[in-house]
C-alpha cells in the first residue's frame, strides 16, 4: 500500500499534537493537576456534546455570528468606499488622511469605555466595535491597492479613451483587487478578535464569549475550552469561505498566482 506524500506530511505533522493530547489526557486524569485548571480531553468532549445537545448553544453561536457578520459587512463596505474615495482623490486623501491615520493608531480598546458610556450595554456598541475593527484594514488595503495600480495601466487607458467611471470600474478596481481581498481577509480576523472583546467588555447573555466567561466564573475550564474551539472553528470556516470565494471569482488568476 503506497501512502501519498500529502498523507505522509499530514501524519507527520499530527504526531506532536497527538502525543500532546495523549500526555494531556494522562496528566489530567491522573489528578496531578486540578481539573478546573486543566480538564482532560474526554471531559472536553463530554462538555461539547452536552452543550450542543441543549439547544441553547446554537443560540449562542447564532448571536455571536450575527454580531460578527453585521459588523464585518458594514465595516467592509464602508471601509471599501472610504478607501476608494481616498485612493481616487488626492484631495480627499489630504483632507481625511491625516485624521484617519491618527485615529486608527489608537487601540480600539481605549474607546470601549467611551462607547459604553455613550450607548450603554446594548447590542449597538458591540456591533460598532466590530465594525470599526473591520473598517481599518479594508480602508488601508483598498487605498494601497488603488495607489499601487501601475501607471502603465493608466497610460493604456488614456490611449483607449477610458475615463472617469469607466476607468474606475474596468481598470482601477480590478487592478486593486488583490490588495482589497487581503484587506477583507484581515478584516475578518480582526472582526472575530473584536467580537470576543466586545462580548467580554459589554456583557450580554447570548454569545460564545459569554459562555467562555461563564465557564471561567464557574471554574468549568472545559466550557471555556469548548468556547475557544468553537470560535476558532467558526473563524476558520468563514476565512476559508472568503478565500474560496476569492479564488472562484479570480479571473485571470491575479489574486492567486498559480498557473
Amino acid at each position, binding site marked *: 500500500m503506497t501512502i501519498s506524500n500529502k498523507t505522509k506530511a499530514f501524519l507527520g505533522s499530527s504526531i506532536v499534537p497527538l502525543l500532546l493530547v495523549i500526555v494531556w489526557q494522562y496528566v489530567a486524569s491522573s489528578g496531578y493537576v486540578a481539573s478546573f485548571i486543566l480538564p482532560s480531553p474526554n471531559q472536553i468532549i463530554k462538555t461539547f456534546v452536552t452543550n450542543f445537545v441543549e439547544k441553547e448553544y446554537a443560540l449562542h453561536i447564532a448571536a455571536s455570528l450575527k454580531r460578527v457578520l453585521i459588523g464585518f459587512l458594514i465595516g467592509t463596505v464602508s471601509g471599501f468606499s472610504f478607501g476608494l474615495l481616498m485612493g481616487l482623490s488626492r484631495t480627499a486623501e489630504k483632507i481625511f488622511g491625516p485624521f484617519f491615520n491618527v485615529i486608527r493608531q489608537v487601540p480600539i480598546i481605549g474607546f470601549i469605555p467611551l462607547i459604553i458610556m455613550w450607548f450603554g450595554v446594548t447590542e449597538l456598541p458591540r456591533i460598532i466595535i466590530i465594525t470599526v475593527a473591520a473598517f481599518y484594514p479594508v480602508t488601508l488595503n483598498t487605498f494601497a491597492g488603488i495607489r499601487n495600480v501601475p501607471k*502603465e*495601466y493608466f*497610460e*493604456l487607458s*488614456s*490611449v*483607449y*479613451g477610458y475615463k472617469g467611471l*469607466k476607468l474606475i470600474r474596468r*481598470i482601477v478596481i*480590478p*487592478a486593486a*483587487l488583490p490588495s482589497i481581498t487581503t484587506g477583507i481577509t484581515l478584516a475578518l480576523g480582526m472582526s472575530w478578535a473584536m467580537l470576543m472583546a466586545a462580548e467580554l467588555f459589554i456583557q450580554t447573555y447570548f454569545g460564545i464569549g459569554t459562555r467562555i466567561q461563564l465557564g471561567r466564573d464557574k471554574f468549568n475550564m472545559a466550557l471555556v475550552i469548548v468556547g475557544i474551539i468553537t470560535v476558532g472553528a467558526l473563524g476558520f470556516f468563514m476565512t476559508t469561505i472568503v478565500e474560496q470565494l476569492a479564488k472562484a471569482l479570480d*479571473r*485571470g*488568476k*491575479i489574486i492567486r*498566482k498559480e*498557473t
Partner: protein
Amino acid sequence: MSVAKGTLEIRNLSKSYVVDNNPLQILKNINITFPAGAFVSILGSSGCGKTTLLRIMLGLETSYEGDALIDGEKIEGPGSNRGIVFQDHRLLPWLTVGENVAFGLDKLNRKTKKLLVDEHLKLVGLSGFEGAYPAQLSGGMAQRVAIARALANKPEILLLDEPLGALDALTRMYMQKELERLWEFEKITMIMVTHDVDEAIYLSDKIIIMSSRPGIINKIINIPSSRPRDRASSEFMQIKAEILNEFHLGSEYPFAYAI
C-alpha cells in the same frame, strides 16, 4: 493642403526637461515626415529620446516646441487614429484574450465586436485563444494579442515601442516576419522604435537614426529594396555597415566582395 490619410509630420520639434536646475535637451529640431502606408523605424540606443518622440506622436506628451501633425492636424492627445504596441504587452490580466483585444471597441455592438476580435486573432495566428488569460500565454503570444488589440481599432498609424525587445532572439525573428506580413495586409503606416539594427533594416522603408544628448537626427536612410528581404544579401550587409558606422561600430575589416 490635404495629406494622405495616415501621414504624420514632425516639424522643428524640441523638448527639454529640467533636472536639478539644469536643462536637459531630450529632442532638438526634429524634422521627419512619415509617409502614409510606410514602415519607418527610429533607430538609436537607449536614452536618445526616441521613446519620448513616440509618446509625443501618441499624444501622451503635450509639452514641446514645434509641431506634430497627423493628417495635417495638430495632435492634441491620444486618439483612435493611432494605435500603440508597448514593449511590455500590457494586457490586462483579469481579462481574457478576447476581452483584451476588444478593449477599445466599447462603442460597438456585441456582434460587431466578436467579428472584429475573431478577425484580428486570426490575423495574428491566435484563433481559438479568445478564452485564455494572459497569464497562460508565452511572451510572443501575448505580444501578438497586443498587436491584435491595437489593430482591432483600425488605426491609421500603428506605433510600436521596441515591441520585440522582451522576446527571445528566435521568437523575435519569427515575429519580425509576422510584423511584415501584418503590415502588408493592413496597409497602414507603422512607426517602430527599436535598437536592433537588423530588425530595422528587415522591416523598414526608411530608417531614422537618432543619437542622444541631445536627441537629434543623425541620418535618414531610405531602403528601396523589395520584400521580403534577405538578411544575408550584400545589399542588406551594406546598409548594415553604413548604419553601424554611424554608431562608430563599423567593422575594421569591411565587407569584401567575393569575385
